């Protein structure tokens, strides 16, 4: 769609594939399709201790589940939470899709997996950092599988999610000095007061946070999503800090490191444009 000024906007769902009758597929095609489908399955790998208790029918006792989606959100947790306390990595979810590196098998764990951490002295607090790309057809499955492992009673879910300020719509011209900022969205079961303004229509949330919200809304789980709109593409410390108030509500179960060391920050806020050849 072209705007008044002629620039072309990509708008959701406006191009529709022709729904032609399924052509008579041969067996080989069907097999390839089936194998691809199998490969695209989301797999959860838990530590032996957790998977044993899951097998015996005991779901993970969880009071607070914090999910960080995107590099800034995940690194915020790495810098402010995971360094300051004792956390066990208890599992990870692996997904394979069109953006996964070629099937050589040489992929770094960090990029392909969403890692789950559990607090050592309070095992009912669970954290997940999801920085890998999860395709549209895998989002529902990911959410369903993860929430299937968690005890739903008294569960509180907090999702921190990155977004670009370019995706934020407002009637006023957005002054870019206002970014980064937070907007919240919560399910009807969520009874607290979010720490920031609610996301205004016609803005929507997509991707993993949306899948989690949908799942939690229909299953009546108290969930809040904090979406951070940032104007910096790579991970940076200012954007990371924006998430700070979101976790103040959880101060009973999670203590934030008030002043992380510069070394830690530097490690996690390293710029990504080193690989970019734009300014060479």
């Amino acid at each position: 769609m072209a705007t008044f000024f002629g620039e072309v906007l990509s708008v959701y769902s406006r191009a529709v594939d022709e729904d032609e009758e399924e052509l008579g597929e041969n067996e080989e095609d069907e097999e390839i399709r089936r194998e691809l489908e199998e490969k695209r399955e989301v797999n959860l790998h838990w530590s032996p201790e957790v998977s044993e208790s899951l097998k015996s029918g005991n779901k993970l006792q969880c009071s607070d589940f914090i999910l960080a989606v995107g590099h800034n959100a995940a690194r915020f947790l790495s810098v402010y939470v995971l360094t300051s306390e004792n956390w066990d990595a208890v599992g990870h979810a692996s997904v394979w899709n069109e953006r996964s590196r070629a099937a050589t098998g040489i992929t770094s764990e960090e990029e392909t997996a969403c890692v789950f951490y559990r607090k050592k002295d309070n095992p009912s607090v669970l954290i997940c950092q999801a920085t890998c790309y999860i395709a549209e057809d895998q989002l529902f499955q990911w959410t369903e599988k993860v929430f299937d492992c968690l005890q739903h009673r008294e569960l509180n879910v907090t999702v921190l999610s990155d977004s670009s300020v370019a995706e934020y719509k407002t009637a006023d011209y957005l002054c870019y000095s206002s970014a980064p900022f937070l907007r919240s969205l919560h399910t009807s079961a969520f009874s607290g007061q979010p720490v920031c303004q609610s996301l205004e229509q016609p803005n929507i949330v997509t991707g993993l946070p949306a899948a989690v919200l949908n799942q939690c809304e229909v299953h009546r789980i108290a969930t809040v999503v904090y979406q951070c709109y940032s104007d910096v593409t790579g991970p940076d410390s200012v954007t990371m800090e924006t998430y700070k108030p979101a976790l103040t509500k959880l101060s009973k179960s999670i203590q934030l490191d008030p002043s992380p060391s510069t070394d830690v920050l530097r490690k996690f806020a390293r710029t990504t444009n080193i690989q970019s050849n734009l300014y060479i």
Partner: protein
Amino acid sequence: MFISSQNSPPSFKDFTLVMPAVAVGNVGQLAVDLIVSTLNMSRVGYIHTDCLIPMTGNNPYATCKEDAEELHTPAEVYTAAELKMAVLQIRAPIIQTKSKKFRQLLVSWIKASGFSRTVVLSSSHAYQRDDQQLQGTPLRYLVTPSLLKVSADALKDLGWKEMERVSAFPGLTDANTEPRLYIPGGGITKGLYTDSCAEDLPLAVLLLFCSEGDNIPDAFTLVNHLNNWLHLLENPSQKPNKWKIPTSWSLLFGSGIPPALF
């Protein structure tokens, strides 16, 4: 899978279901938005399925600050009990490989719920019309045999135009190829219609030939067309327009422009 948002599951017995097909220009979805917001319908449940791309947002039909903070999901069911009417709104595209599964899910839900009839609002690429379709109104309809049995007279009175079957190979006169139903850009429309014919479901499709762009006028055309049949509003086309545009339609062309530009 239908999940009720209330404590007791709603009854749809003998209700009319209106639903969109996610199709070119999103005309059906926009028309359904107009119905929900104008009739002030209440949400009774969700269609929770892996066939749709997840999305969510606050209340798209918010009228005041109090009801703005309410989470809405990709597919939701609304009712107006006094009109015996239910509406399924679909807000997200269907995952391509799962469109057949989605159709089956809808057909079995429609069957199980006991709707008296289903109306699918849809659209099709205007540029792919053939010579006969170019003339006259851009609106077409399709009905399944089981709905035709009960609504034949009503449809005759309306004087609507049925969707033409087009020849498979235009220009070639081959006695062996039968004209076929062709709805390019119509998403699941054709599949849903043929499934409903096979399952003996009373279903009608109302569609409009259109192109991508600002499709708000198309939505009004389609919803007025539907209103001629279902009489949801009296004289809706009279000025001022009686259909209520929901808040979620704002900023269609993006954010505000920098004031320093002028």
